[in-house]
C-alpha cells in the first residue's frame, strides 16, 4: 500500500493549494484520506458476511474572510484535484486574486499510537474465529440467552493535510473494535446486554483483551435484567461506576466547551473562563495524545499535533477546545481538536479522549455513604442541548442502592440533568480511574471516534427517568 505522499506528489499539492487561493482567498487546505476497512458480523449463530471497504479521496477547503468554500473528490489525479480546488475557490469567493504560489517544506509524520499487528495483514479466518468464540461464550452463560450478535471491525486510515500556511503533515490511524449484543428472554419479556472494546491499535487488541470475557459480561447483563424492576422516577443520588460514565462529562460539559459553539453564544459555558463551573473535586482533561486510546490521534484533521488540554482544573474553567478557524477568529492557539469524519466533511471542533482524573474516595465508601439511590454500572449514549445545558444519558446496566448497599437490578431508562448544576453536584470522587468503552460522537451529522473515562463518582441529585413511583 503506497503512502499518500507517493500517491499525490508535493508539487501537485502546492499547485492545488495555489489554485484554491486563485480567486483571492487567504487560506487553502487539502485533506487526503485513504481508508481501508474490514468488518465481519455474526448473528443468529451464523457468520453473515465479511465486508471490505475502501474510501479514498480529498477534501479541499478555501477560506475567504468569514466564508468557507469546500469541495471533495474521489479523483486523486492532478486534474481531479485542481477541479475540486477551483470549485472550492469559487464557492468561497467569486473573483480573481491573481497568481498565488504556495511552497511546502518536508512532510511532518506524527504518530502517537504504536501498532504491533496491522489488521489488514491478519488472515480473515482469525477475525471470524473471534466472532464464533464470542457467540459460544455468550450462549454458555445461561439458557435464557436466546440471541447473540457480534461484530468485528478494523480500519487503517491514512491522512495527509497541507495548507497554504505551510502545514504539511501525515498520520496513520489504525483502529480495531469488537462488540457483542445479547438478547435474553424470560417470563417478563426480553432484555438486552451490550459491551464493546476498541483501541487505536492493531490486532494485538485481542492479546490484551478477551472476547469471551466481553461476551460473557454482555450475556450476564441481559440475564440479570430479566429480573430487573422498573427504575425509579424522580431526583435521586446517583453513583456512577468507574469507566462507565465518561459520557456524563462528554455531554454535561464537553460539547459546551467546544469553541465553535461557545463563539456562537450557543453554550452555557460562554464567558466563564476563570470561573468556578464545577465542584472543586473535578479536573477535566481532553487528551488526544493518550497512546492507543479510542480517541488518540497523532495529528488532528487540520494537520495540528494532538495535545493534552486541561479544560477544568479543580472546578475552575481553564480553556475551551479549538480548531483552526475558531482559533484564528479569536486570536487563540489551536488545541488539536479540529476533526472530521472523512474527506467528504468539513473539520470542526471535536473532543478526543475526555476524562476526569482521580479523586481520593474509596469506591466502596461512595456506595456505603449513599443511603438510597441508583448505582449505574454501564451507561449508554447521551445527548446535550449546549445552549440550555440540559443533557440526557441512558443507563443500560443499573441497580438500586438501599441503605448503602447495591441491591436489585433496574430496567433501562434515561437520566436527565442540567450540565452546570450536575458538575456542581458531584460530591464524591473515587480513586479508581478507568477509561470507558469506545464511543462515536455525533455533531452536525458527523461521527468521530472518541474516548472517555472517570473514576467512580457520586452526583448528589440527578433525575432518574423510570416509571416506579
Amino acid at each position, binding site marked *: 500500500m503506497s503512502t499518500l505522499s507517493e500517491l499525490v506528489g508535493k508539487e501537485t499539492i502546492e499547485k492545488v493549494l495555489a489554485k484554491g487561493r486563485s480567486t483571492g482567498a487567504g487560506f487553502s487546505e487539502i485533506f487526503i484520506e485513504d481508508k481501508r476497512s474490514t*468488518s*465481519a458480523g455474526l448473528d*443468529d*449463530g*451464523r*457468520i*453473515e*458476511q*465479511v*465486508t*471490505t*471497504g*475502501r*474510501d*479514498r*479521496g480529498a477534501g479541499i477547503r478555501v477560506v475567504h474572510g*468569514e*466564508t*468557507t*468554500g*469546500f*469541495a*471533495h473528490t*474521489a*479523483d486523486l489525479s492532478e486534474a481531479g484535484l485542481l477541479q475540486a480546488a477551483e470549485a472550492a475557490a469559487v*464557492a468561497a469567493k467569486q473573483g480573481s486574486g491573481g497568481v498565488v504560489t504556495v511552497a511546502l517544506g518536508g512532510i511532518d509524520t506524527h504518530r502517537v499510537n504504536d501498532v504491533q499487528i496491522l489488521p489488514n495483514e491478519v488472515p480473515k*479466518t482469525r*477475525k471470524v474465529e473471534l466472532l464464533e468464540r464470542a457467540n459460544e461464550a455468550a450462549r454458555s452463560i445461561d439458557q435464557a440467552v*436466546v440471541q447473540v450478535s457480534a461484530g468485528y471491525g478494523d480500519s487503517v486510515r491514512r491522512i495527509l493535510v497541507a495548507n497554504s500556511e505551510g502545514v504539511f503533515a501525515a498520520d496513520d490511524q489504525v483502529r480495531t473494535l469488537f462488540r457483542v449484543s445479547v*438478547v435474553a*428472554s424470560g417470563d417478563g*419479556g*426480553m432484555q*438486552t446486554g451490550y459491551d464493546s472494546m476498541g483501541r487505536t491499535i492493531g490486532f494485538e487488541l485481542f492479546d490484551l483483551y478477551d472476547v469471551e470475557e466481553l461476551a460473557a459480561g454482555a450475556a450476564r447483563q441481559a440475564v440479570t435484567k430479566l429480573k430487573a424492576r422498573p*427504575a425509579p*422516577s*424522580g*431526583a435521586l443520588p446517583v453513583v456512577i461506576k468507574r469507566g462507565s460514565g465518561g459520557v456524563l462529562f462528554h455531554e454535561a460539559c464537553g460539547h459546551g466547551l467546544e469553541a465553535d459553539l461557545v463563539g*456562537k453564544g450557543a453554550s452555557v459555558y460562554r464567558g466563564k473562563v476563570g470561573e468556578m463551573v464545577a465542584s472543586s473535586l473535578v479536573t477535566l482533561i481532553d487528551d488526544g495524545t493518550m497512546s492507543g486510546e479510542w480517541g488518540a490521534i497523532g495529528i488532528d484533521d487540520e494537520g495540528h499535533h494532538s495535545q493534552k488540554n486541561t479544560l477544568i482544573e479543580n472546578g475552575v474553567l481553564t480553556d475551551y477546545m479549538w480548531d483552526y478557524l475558531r482559533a484564528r477568529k479569536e486570536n487563540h492557539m489551536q488545541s488539536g481538536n479540529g476533526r472530521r469524519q472523512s474527506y467528504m466533511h*468539513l473539520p470542526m471542533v471535536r473532543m478526543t479522549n475526555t476524562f476526569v482524573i482521580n479523586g481520593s474516595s474509596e469506591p466502596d465508601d461512595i456506595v456505603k455513604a449513599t443511603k438510597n439511590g441508583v448505582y449505574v454500572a454501564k451507561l449508554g*449514549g*447521551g*445527548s446535550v442541548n449546549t*445552549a*440550555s445545558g*440540559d*443533557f*440526557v*444519558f*441512558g443507563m443500560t446496566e443499573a441497580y438500586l442502592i438501599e441503605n448503602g448497599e447495591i441491591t436489585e437490578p433496574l*430496567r*433501562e*431508562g*434515561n437520566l*436527565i440533568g442540567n450540565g452546570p448544576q450536575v458538575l456542581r453536584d458531584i460530591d464524591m470522587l473515587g480513586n479508581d480511574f478507568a477509561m470507558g468503552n469506545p464511543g462515536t460522537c455525533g455533531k452536525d451529522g458527523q461521527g468521530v471516534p472518541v474516548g472517555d473515562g472517570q473514576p467512580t463518582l457520586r452526583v448528589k441529585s440527578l*433525575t432518574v*427517568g*423510570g*416509571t416506579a*413511583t
Partner: protein
Amino acid sequence: MSSGNALQDLADRIVAQAKSGEQVEAYVSRGGETSIRIYEGEVEHFVSAQSESVGIRVIKEGRTGYAYAGTLDESVLSEVFAEARDNVQFGSADEWAGLADPDGVEKVPQELWNEELAHFPTAEKIAIAKELEKLTLATDSRIRIDDANYDDAYGETAFATTSGIRAHGRENGCYVSVGTLADDGDETQTGFGFSVGRTPTEFNLARAAREAADRATRLLGATKPNSKRTTIVLDPYVTAQFLRVLSSSFSGENVQKGRSFFAERLGESVANPLVTLIDDPTNPLAYSATDIDGEGLAARRNVLIENGTLKQFLHSSYSARRGQTKSTGSAVRTGGTPGVSCLAMQLVPGTATQEELIAQVSDGVLIQMVQGLHSGVNPISGDFSTGASGLLITNGQVGAPIREFTIASTLQRMLQDVVAIGGDVDWLPMSANGMSLVINDVTMSGA
C-alpha cells in the same frame, strides 16, 4: 447490451462477469450535494460535493461476501469484485441466503426527479437561506440565529443481479432549516424550523421562521416539573420520532431472530383500536417515497396495524424465504446484506386539531421536543424513557413551559394507551409522518 445509461451499463457489466455457481449483485450509485450555511447575513460555508460508490455482493453455496468502494474508478472495480469473492469463503452457509427474484409487482410511478431543482441557480439558493435568517430574526427581539441552512442533494442508482433484476432510478430534493437561540437574562433556550420541497419554490420560509422562534421563546422561563403520572400530547414532529422507534419491531427478520416484542402476536390486539399504521413508500407525499426497495423490487403499501390489530410483518427476500412467505418490498441497504425496515410509516390521522385535542385534557403536558431517544429507548424490551421539554396543560389550556424532565412507559403500553389521534398531518423530512397524538398514563420524572 446497452441501456443508454452509464450506471446501469456499469452494473450490468459487473454482473456479466459472474462465474458459474455464483450469484452476483452490483449496486452502483453517484450523487452530489450542495450545503449552504448562513450566519449573520454572510455565507459561513458553501459545500459542493460529488460522491460515487459501488457495492458488490457475491453468494456461492449459501455463503455471502461483500465489498464496496467510494469510487467508480475502473482500476478499483476489479479489486472490489476480487475482495467480495474472497470474503465469500468466510461466511457461514445459510440455506436462505440469496438474491431477490423478480416478482412481477409493477412499480408505482413516482416523480422523484425535479428538473427545476436540478437547474436552480446557486445565487438564489444563497438568497433563500439569507432570507430565512432575516425572517427568523424579525419574528421576535429575543431571538438570535445559530445557523440558517439550505441543503439539496441528488442521487442516481442502478442495480443488476444474476437473478434478473435490473433497476435504475434517480432522485433529488432540497430543504431549508434554521436553528434559533432565545435569550432572557442568563437563560438560553433553543428551537428549530425547517421546510422541505421538491424544488425551492415550494418552501414555506415564513412558517419555518415562525416555528423556529416559537419553539425557543415558548420555553423561556421553563421550570422543572414534579414527578407524576400524566397524559401527554405529542407534537407532530415528536409523534414521527415515536413512530420511527417502533419500526424495527415490524421487521420480519427481527421477528425470526427473536428481536421483536411483536413476535407471536399476529392477529392480536397490540394497540388501541384507534390505531391504524401503514408503511407506504408509494405515497408521493412521504419524504422518503420511493419506487423500489433496497433489492430492486417494487416498493409497495403494507398495512402493519389495522384498528389496533397486528396485521403483518415486513420482509426482504431473505426473511421471506426464511419465513416461507413473499417479500413485501421492504429491503433497505445500510451495509452489505439488505436489512428490513419500514420505508415510509404513516399513522392514519383523525380529524381533530391540536387545540381540540388539548381541550380534552384536564391535566397533562404538550411535548414539544424529546432528547435521547437513542439512549433511553430499547425497541427489543420495549422500555421507553426520554428527556423532554414542553408546556403544561391544565383544564384544556396550554400553560407554563417545563423542561429537564423525562417521560417513561413501555412501547407496548403506549400503543394501548393512545387515546386520540389528530388530523394535523405534517409530512416531515424523515421516514414517518407526524400528527398530534394523545397518550395516557405516562410517568413524568422531574424534581
